[in-house]
């Protein structure tokens, strides 16, 4: 019996050590993955003058290379304002405050159908108190799961193991070459299609409004100018949403209340041309070129 107990203790100890090492490997590798925006902004100094934040729309339409100035694109796919707030918070932890922060603001940003808090991206950063508390408040299940011994990453294996291996590869190869160094992800060629049904009514989620306000307050506390902006929208589809204008009015009121600008880019010619879009709000390759020209004029007026 004594022999068995000793053997069992050795096995248990070995297994626990393996699990601790495995979790450490995930933490370490994910933080060293330069393709992951939230790791990348903490590992290197970007110190951009203009910072764009938001969901996939800024992520795939703001090209710092075309803008030819010190701009960084902090847009992340399917992210809502809670995630955007955490992204900005992590960015400011390691970088100088930018001169201007452009926050992508459209009716879609307040509706959970399109964007949400992707807590799995924040798992390697849960040691930070602000990140930890925010995840606890808005995604309690992920928070709870992350606290189960050795299972911090296991619930997100399908999303995260690939990134972990990539991070490990970066570390071993000492590879610091960033795939999307300025944060811009160029879209492949897509054909135009509807992203939601006709007559889709947007829903205004209060938590998104709260966190947009938090983004504004955080930026103001760093003495940074905040600008809300909407990139061009495809008019034919946009007119199909019965409460789009009502939402735009709400956004304008919000900007007014915070005494900040709200700019709607695009013009009649651009917004009517279907070759500029792949859906209501996401721009095609051609659209990105045109839009960045317009944006450049705004950022660096002659």
């Amino acid at each position, binding site marked *: 019996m004594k022999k068995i107990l000793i053997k069992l203790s050795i096995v248990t100890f*070995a297994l626990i050590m393996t*699990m601790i090492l495995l979790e450490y490997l995930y933490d370490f590798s994910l933080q060293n993955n330069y393709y992951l925006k939230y790791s990348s902004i903490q590992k290197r100094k970007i110190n951009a003058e203009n910072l764009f934040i938001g969901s996939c729309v800024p992520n795939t339409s703001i090209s710092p290379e075309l803008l030819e100035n010190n701009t960084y694109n902090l847009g992340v796919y399917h992210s809502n304002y809670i995630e955007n707030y955490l992204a900005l918070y992590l960015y400011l932890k390691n970088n100088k405050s930018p001169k201007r922060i452009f926050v992508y603001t459209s009716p879609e940003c307040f509706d959970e159908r399109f964007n949400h808090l992707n807590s799995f991206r924040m798992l390697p950063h849960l040691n930070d108190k602000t990140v930890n508390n925010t995840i606890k408040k808005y995604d309690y299940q992920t928070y709870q799961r992350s606290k189960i011994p050795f299972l911090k990453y296991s619930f997100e294996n399908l999303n995260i193991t690939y990134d972990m291996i990539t991070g490990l590869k970066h570390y071993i190869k000492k590879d610091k070459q960033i795939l999307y160094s300025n944060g811009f992800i160029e879209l492949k060629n897509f054909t135009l299609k509807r992203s939601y049904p006709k007559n889709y009514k947007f829903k205004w989620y209060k938590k998104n409004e709260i966190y947009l306000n938090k983004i504004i307050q955080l930026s103001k506390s760093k003495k940074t100018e905040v600008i809300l902006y909407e990139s061009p929208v495809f008019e034919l589809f946009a007119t199909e949403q019965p409460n789009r204008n009502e939402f735009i009015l709400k956004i304008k009121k919000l900007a007014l209340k915070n005494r900040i600008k709200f700019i709607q880019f695009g013009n009649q010619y651009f917004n009517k041309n279907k070759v500029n879009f792949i859906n209501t709000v996401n721009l095609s390759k051609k659209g990105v070129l045109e839009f960045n020209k317009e944006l450049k004029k705004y950022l660096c007026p002659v």
Partner: protein
Amino acid sequence: MDFNALYFSLSFLIFLFFYHTILKNQKLKSLLFFSSFILIYFFPLASLICFISSISTFKIGVLIQKNKLKVNTSSIYILGISFLILNLISIKYLNYIKLFNPKNSNLTQIGISFYTLQNISYLIDIKKQRLSNNNFSNFILYNIYFPRFLSGPIIQPKDFFFKFQDSISQKFNPSIISTGLNLILVGTFKKIVLSDRLSPIIEHHFSFSNDNIGLTNLIISFLFTFQLYFDFSGYTDIARGISKTLGFDLIPNFNIPLRAKSISEFWRKWHISLTSWLTNYVFYPVSFKLRKQKKLGTSIAILITFILSGLWHGFGITFIIYALFHAFYLIFEHYTLNFRNKLKTPNILTIPSTFILVSIAFIFFRAENFEIARRIFISLFNFIQFWPVNFEKEVLTKIALGGEKINLYNLYITLILCCIYLIFEFSIEKLIHSERIYIIFYIIILTLIFAFGIFGNQTVFIYNQF
């Protein structure tokens, strides 16, 4: 794996400790109590149906044995069997027409197919005087014994009533814990790493309109065979592992079936407990009755056995077609036995062809409805659109559910892990049945589970629905 699984694991570990220490003289009672607790706590509706069915069967069994009513025991026996079959059919049918709230419709029928077969064989054995039992607690435990309640393996009455009490009363031997742990670990690996990684691919292609080319659908049907095998055998390994730690050996339900060289060999190695139940209680009696018809009689017996097996799985037409496929395969094998024996086809041809035939039949087993199954099946024989023009776009991207690097990576990892398991299956089977603890093996398996397992998506075992 979800929180229910974690709660179950924790409560089981606590129970196991007390079972082998304080409760070592009350093992039967404690098992009865813990099984009832687990059943009522996790599946209250199903437990109610199970208890009603069990009490009725026990009472009928007692009546047959004592013949208290002084009537012909055959009528009581037929009444009992009819009651069990009607109960099974009505619950399954009510679920089929979605009478119950869809959210908990499956909860009413959990385990019913399995304990109904056990109860039928119990009554048959009592009637044929192969068994006698007047102990109610023993009988209830026979039905609700928690390691096997959800999806078997089906225990034959003689195995339970003659062996169970002796097995669990034996002095504690530490090797049962190590063997049990081996089985649980490998079962968990099969379920949450191999089966659950394949699950979204299968779910997508068998549930929605399918416009894939033939090769893609053929690969997907192979993947479903893998998924079903890993899922069901994973469940069985966990059930056997848990039972082993309690001191009772459940029969293995699988014996490396994907290396079968013929369909008849496949059925000797796949879902063994159901196959042997059907063989003993349906095939043998029917073929005995039709023995004068020789080959035709055997063919009819095969057909009846498989149709019953199809109906046992569910009422959908797809299950009947699935059963007919296998009946046809076996009848064909039966008629060509002598010719095939002379031919002596090498394994390199027989194993893959058996696998392909099985996978094709499984299309009907899995498809959400007949239309999807028909489309997939027809695409396999559409030779103009069978081969892809662009392999990556028409095959890989479709199977990986997306062309992003992460999708392809996830697919490759799944395929590599499945292949590695299947290649080393024989050695792994040998290893898990050994009484030794291999630290390296444990570390590898646990690392794979934690790094590649799917946690928290709440996929239930496929056979829980039956």
